[in-house]
């Protein structure tokens, strides 16, 4: 498959006696938004950490744009074009929004300081943060920080963006705007892997869904197929639901 931007095959990761990921394989097509869902402890965030180079998988390979990136350190993976956001925002607290974004642009793209500072306002505009330009990240609300996560990830010009629960902590009213932002990122040609629990997001935003359960891939397919799959319903609600 030529179009697959990320190809995961046979990834396993154990933490002591716990198999957080067991023989996970899937392909992600370029230009898509793929939803990754599953109950707590299914291994979603572990998978993101493995792809981003924070954990080294015990076995299996990860190929990105045809290139084996298994076991590369996190900063190199970022520079190759994979950026991520964190479920709980992890900003650079004592830096302003502009600096947060500029740092990622400088090091993620390998550009100079003034070039990064010139590029940063555009990224802030995309994520509705222009008015927070000079606000320190530690003085921001969770909602704003959620957008800053996306802004920082975007700043490194990723071809693949891993978004870990962008809707968690947002209200119903704030959700549509976040989805618009993600859709506009996809419009620019960025492939997105979206971890989410909020069903509304899954129904509206993604092209395909991959469901994980207890460290393994359970089902994948179009949103309407997946959501009506008995195995998916069982893993969320129990066998006799």
């Amino acid at each position, binding site marked *: 498959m030529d179009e697959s931007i990320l190809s995961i095959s046979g990834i396993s990761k154990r933490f002591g006696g716990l198999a957080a990921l067991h023989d996970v394989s899937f392909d992600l097509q370029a230009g898509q938004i793929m939803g990754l869902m599953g109950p707590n402890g299914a291994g979603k965030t572990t998978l993101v950490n493995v792809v981003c180079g924070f954990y080294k998988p015990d076995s299996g390979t990860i190929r990105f744009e045809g290139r084996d990136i298994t076991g590369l350190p996190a*900063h190199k993976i970022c520079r190759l074009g994979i*950026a991520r956001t964190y479920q709980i925002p992890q900003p650079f607290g004592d830096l302003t929004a502009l600096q947060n974004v500029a740092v990622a642009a*400088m090091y*993620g793209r390998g550009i100079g300081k003034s070039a990064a500072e010139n590029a940063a306002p555009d990224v802030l505009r995309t994520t509705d943060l222009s008015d927070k330009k000079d606000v320190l990240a530690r003085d921001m609300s969770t909602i704003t920080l959620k957008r800053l996560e996306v802004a920082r990830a975007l700043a490194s010009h990723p071809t693949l963006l891993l978004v870990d629960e962008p809707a968690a902590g947002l209200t119903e009213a704030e959700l549509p705007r976040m989805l618009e932002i993600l859709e506009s990122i996809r419009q620019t040609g960025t492939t997105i892997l979206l971890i989410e629990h909020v069903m509304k997001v899954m129904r509206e935003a993604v092209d395909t869904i991959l469901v994980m359960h207890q460290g393994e891939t359970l089902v994948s397919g179009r949103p309407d197929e997946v959501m009506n799959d008995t195995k998916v319903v069982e893993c969320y609600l129990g066998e006799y639901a």
Partner: protein
Amino acid sequence: MQNTVRRYMPLISLGVVTIVLAVLPKMGVPRVWPLYLFHFFVFLAMANMWNLLAGYSGLLALCPAAFIGLAAYTMTILTWVDVPFYVGIIAGGAAAALFAAIISPSVFRMKGVYFAIGTLVVPEILRLVFLRWRPVGGELHGGGAGYMVKGMAGVTMEHTYWLGLAIGVASVIVMGIILRSKLGLGLAAIRDNDATAASSGIDVFRLKLYSFVIAAFIMGVAGAIFYSYQGYIEPSAGFNIKWLMMALLATVIGGKGIEGGPLVGAIIVVIFHFQLARYGELNLLIQGIVLVIIMLAAPQGIMGLVRDVRKAGGLGALLRSASRGRIRARQL
């Protein structure tokens, strides 16, 4: 035009101050002035570099004494093999930088407070080594493992003063350059969140290494200059924890993570150093009490307080908003 002036104002004022300080010893000022200022320069360089590590790179390095002692020993021992002391000063800085690079893979494995503890033992290990190891000169006798600095005939207090001035000013310039560079922003990112820094493309180890090695070099040069003035070094002085206390006090009192902090802090520490010397051991007690008072009144240091006052628009406004904050905190 006005913008250009404003932009280069700090540089111009630094230049003017440097020139004034450079000609000061020739102006017939009281003889203690150069002595006080010499200490100030050395302390300033130390504090600036400690601020680079602890304030801007998130490296709570408790091993400045290792860099001081190692560089000073290198300089001193080189004078025994007929190397001029000013060459030895640079060689000392280089030795400290090399040492920092060598220990970094092991100490950088530790994070936060573990890094602090891990680095705290480093000077102690070196002290024990230099208590037993005499690379030049005869066997130990009487005075312990100390060395005189040789080849200092004709070197006056003025010369030492200028060397001190040079390293003090150099530390200010290096700090200014780093903080305005890509490196400075990258280090600040690591300080704030090293995982996010890595996932934003920052090679965390390499940037920390740069910061550590630069700090070790300048601290080392400052230490070697200081001991060229002392004329004598022995392990329990060169590797003494007092070096750490001095750098830490100056940085924290002045304002950690603030560019001007060490400058203010170093002035206060020098005053302490000379004015409290007559109280002997009580000296440390007094310094400790002053530190506690400053921490209570200005947790961000003196320059931190100044910054907050400026931001709030006056001391009154700051106090009012602080008390409002306290009321709000109680309601929550």
